[in-house]
């Protein structure tokens, strides 16, 4: 794993001093520091980042579903349009305990290259996390997005409702087990829009006994 940038190492040292054993694991990701915190310290770590580390800027909050990608095309069908992902469940930088993970990034507008990537695990049967809205008001829309895309519930969010999708929409589209319906309805167009050569099976003219000219 590539070494931490100097600023990221400083940020990590400060975070460790402030959060103590609330940090489950930490790792470097191409110079940045990824810190996985306990779920009950999710909002406290945001406050520490904002008030102690000077990370006053919220870049994004998102989710990750570590479930292996279900195969879209059958093996040997010739559909190479979808990348084949590994079939076993592995976790990324700084690890994870289960399938669902919350991911956020905060930056400082005052210190150069000063940013922290925060992660926390959500157990499958209890997808609750503390809301960041009171710390970063901009978390409002990001948490609504994570709620509708993954089904994460943010305690303390003033109004969790649909952001992109219509209000009667069911399901959580960014979960790995939610199929990409466009692919189900119509296979990869590069695969099907090929007219058969005369004489080949599937050529209507030949089957009708017509002249294959």
């Amino acid at each position, binding site marked *: 794993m590539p070494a931490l*940038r100097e600023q990221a190492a400083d940020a990590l040292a400060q975070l460790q001093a402030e959060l103590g054993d609330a940090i489950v694991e930490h790792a470097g*990701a*191409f*110079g*940045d520091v*990824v810190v996985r915190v306990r779920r009950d310290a999710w909002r*406290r770590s945001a*406050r*520490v980042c*904002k*008030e*102690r*580390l*000077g990370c*006053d*800027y*919220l*870049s*994004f909050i*998102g989710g*990750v*579903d570590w479930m292996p*990608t279900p195969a*879209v095309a059958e093996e040997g069908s010739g559909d190479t*349009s*979808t*990348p*084949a*992902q*590994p079939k076993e469940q*592995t976790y*990324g*930088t700084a690890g994870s305990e289960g399938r669902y993970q919350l*991911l956020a*990034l905060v930056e400082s*507008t*005052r*210190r*150069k*290259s000063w940013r922290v*990537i925060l992660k926390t695990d959500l157990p499958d049967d209890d997808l609750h996390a503390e809301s960041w*809205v*009171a*710390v*970063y*008001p*901009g978390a*409002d*829309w990001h948490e609504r997005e994570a709620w509708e*895309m993954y089904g994460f519930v943010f305690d303390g969010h*003033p*109004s969790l409702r*649909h*952001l*992109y*999708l219509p209000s009667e929409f069911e399901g959580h*589209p*960014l979960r790995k087990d939610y199929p*990409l319906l466009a*692919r189900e309805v119509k296979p990869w167009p590069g695969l099907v829009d090929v007219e058969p050569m005369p004489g080949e099976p599937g050529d209507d003219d030949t089957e009708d006994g017509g002249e294959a000219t």
Partner: protein
Amino acid sequence: MTTTDLPPPGELPEIAVDPAAFRHLADSQVNVELDTGDMVLNIGPQHPATHGTLRIVVRLDGERVVSADPIIGYMHRGYEKLTEFRTYPQITTLINRIDWLSSFANEVPFIDAAEQLMAIEAPPRAQYLRTILTELSRIATFVLFLGEMGLQVGAITPAFYGFRDREYVLNLIEAVTGGRFHPNFNRIGGIKDDLPWGWISECRGVMNKVLASCDEFDDLVVGNPIFQKRTRSIGIIPRELGAAYGVSGSNLRASGVDWDLRRDGPKYLVYDELDWQVWTHPDGDSFARYWVRLQETRESARMVLQMLDQMPSGPLMAKVPRIIKVPEGEVFVNTENPLGEMGYYVISKGATGPFRTKIRSASFSNVSILPWLLRGVYVPDIVTILASLYFILGDIDR
């Protein structure tokens, strides 16, 4: 601010909640049906000031906005899901369409992320070409804004100037890439082609025209008393609140935050080899946002002129395997796009396509401040505030 300004370690004090920051959340559930008390005005989804299909439900008390609720998602195309079904070279085609005014600039952070994961570095000439094309997209995006902002306050002339200059720059981009709006010109490890013959002198001419027309905008719009009356102290974004909302780019610099990822972020492209400066304005109002973008257009044109002078020669592509498989890892790359911070959090599991891509787009966060910002303003100012924030719907909805 340095470390010494921050409170000393120890127990955290009680959270200081600024009621002003949450005033819009108290009644964020706007009644979409017609209310008998206040008047509900539905702006959009089709409205010229919304640059696409943004719908804003505002509740009015006379001419004043009581609450505003932007309703987005009319252009949601699910790019985050689609990236999981594409290979890396295919994805650049998708992300071209996020912010369609500056498509080339969208490609750069994603390609950079893939290159970091693969431990490839593009050769210097490719880096220069990328920087030039990124800055050209910035100019093409900003001159349109400089013209259009005049249009929103009733001035027709600047809009023609804006489109004229944008056309010059788009012609330059087309001459290099073959595409006016969606170049799809970046490759992992470099760039597709070199500059056509005679392009450099052509580009110099256009940059001088852009610099000249910036002076025209300065006289025509910035110096115009009506424009000043309509934009000064309208739609003020306080710097701390703007940052906490994730407002970025020129919008944040117009609030006095001296932060530009081209200078302050981890190194990308060749900005550290150029002589340029970051412009800020202390006011944070609509006027400040216009002024900052005008200065940044000039700065970009000067940067392009510098780069044309000092461009190195050499190869355009690094050594790249025929089938692009990206090793396992996670990386976040963000760049200063014309509209603000554009970032990709790419999670790779060693396949030909990413396992997950979180797209951080600028306009999404820039617009999320609208419920707070529009409260208490007058109806005609809604239009100038929307125009001055300068968002692209594809960049909000992704």
